[in-house]
């Protein structure tokens, strides 16, 4: 290959090919000859070799890589590795579910109006406290109209009543070991236990809700006091400004009258 000095100087690809030794023997010899005569190219190739030497000092980290593919009976194959599980999403969903269930069980009703924050909890019959005046003025509402705003409540009640009826009417399944047991007595006992447990939970929840309402109310009052004080300060500042302005006007009037 005829490789002139100018060709190598102008063609850096040849220099790179020589640097990485991806040249034919003839090319190698030609470039060597050129480098022996060209100080600039010689310097450049030395510099590039120096850079390559420095690049060798950049090792990647050595993590614990444990990939493997495993076969699953439910799917053709699945991946088993260390990818972070989606537990965060599951946890959030679980938390939401718990909150929703708690609100549903407690039959919570939160309202904020001119009366302040009101939190009511359930175990009170829906629409069981009609105002005496309203009751007198308005015909007694049918169950459907009574729950117009909350149709799910009627559905829930209907479902509950149906379930209770079915439970009552469902004959007890014969159990060999239970033949000697007094089933009505056991049922009564279980019922009593459940009832006591519900009562305890009601009291505890009512206590906690009352605490919450009290805390929120106190915070609201404190906020109101702070706002009132802020307005008071603003009024004082405004009053002082007006007085200052009036004093200035009086001074100007006096000065103008003197002239």
């Amino acid at each position, binding site marked *: 290959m005829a490789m002139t000095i100018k060709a190598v100087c102008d063609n850096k*690809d040849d220099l*790179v*090919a020589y640097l990485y030794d991806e040249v034919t023997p003839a090319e190698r010899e030609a470039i060597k000859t050129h480098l022996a005569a060209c100080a600039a190219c010689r310097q450049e190739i030395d*510099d590039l*070799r120096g850079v*390559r030497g420095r690049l060798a000092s950049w090792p990647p980290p050595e993590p614990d890589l444990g990939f493997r*593919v495993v076969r699953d009976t439910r799917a053709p194959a699945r991946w088993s590795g260390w990818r972070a599980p989606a537990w965060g999403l599951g946890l959030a969903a679980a938390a939401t579910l718990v909150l929703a269930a708690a609100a549903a069980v407690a039959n919570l009703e939160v309202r904020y109006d001119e009366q302040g924050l009101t939190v009511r909890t359930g175990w009170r019959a829906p629409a069981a406290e009609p105002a005496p005046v309203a009751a007198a003025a308005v015909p007694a509402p049918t169950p459907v109209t009574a729950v117009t705003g909350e149709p799910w409540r009627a559905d829930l009640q209907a479902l509950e009543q149906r379930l209770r009826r079915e439970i009552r009417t469902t004959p007890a399944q014969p159990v060999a070991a239970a033949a000697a047991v007094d089933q009505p007595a056991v049922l009564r006992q279980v019922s009593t236990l459940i009832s006591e447990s519900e009562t305890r939970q009601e009291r505890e929840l009512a206590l906690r809700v009352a605490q919450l309402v009290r805390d929120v109310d106190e915070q609201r009052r404190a906020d109101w006091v702070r706002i009132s004080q802020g307005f008071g300060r603003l009024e004082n500042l405004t009053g002082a400004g007006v007085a200052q302005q009036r004093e200035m006007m009086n001074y100007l009037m006096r000065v103008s009258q003197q002239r």
Partner: protein
Amino acid sequence: MAWTDEELVARSIGGDLDSFNQLVVRWQRPIYALAYRVIGREEDARDVCQETFLRAFRAIRGFKGQAKFSSWLYRITLNLCRDWMRRERRAPIAQAPEGVDLIELAAERDVGETVEDLISRRELTQAVARAMATLPEEQRTAIILKEYHGLTFQEIADLIDCPLSTVKTRLYQGLTVLRRQLAQAGIEHGHDHQSRL
């Protein structure tokens, strides 16, 4: 006797899961290293590495052996890295120098290496990583494939779908920029590559 990549690929296509896992074990470190050097983040490099093998596993039946298995993996990895950079809209991260923990350093020392030498080595590593992070993606990729994975010009050209001369140009330009960056960082020439004149 160890199976070749081609043999393991053929067995994998035939449904032999163990053969594919042997390929995984064989290639996971180079693939991780490639991903790490391209995108510069350990955790993301692990994700890219895992995704590379997952995609390879799903597509293994379509691999006809027109290229080396490793080149096929590299191509998948580079595509994933490109996706990552596009998604994250950022250049590779050159991690900032960390505080020096002498005990940790002592544990990392090579035989016969002083703590001072080790600190210098770490500084050099960080300087190189920072300099590499400044390169345009195509130059960085060419240098990584050439320097750390030993691919030929032609293999790189095939992998990134560009002419051979473009690969050489990118290498030259990238090395030139690195030389300038390292000089600015006060890094003198290395002595690993002896002049072969």
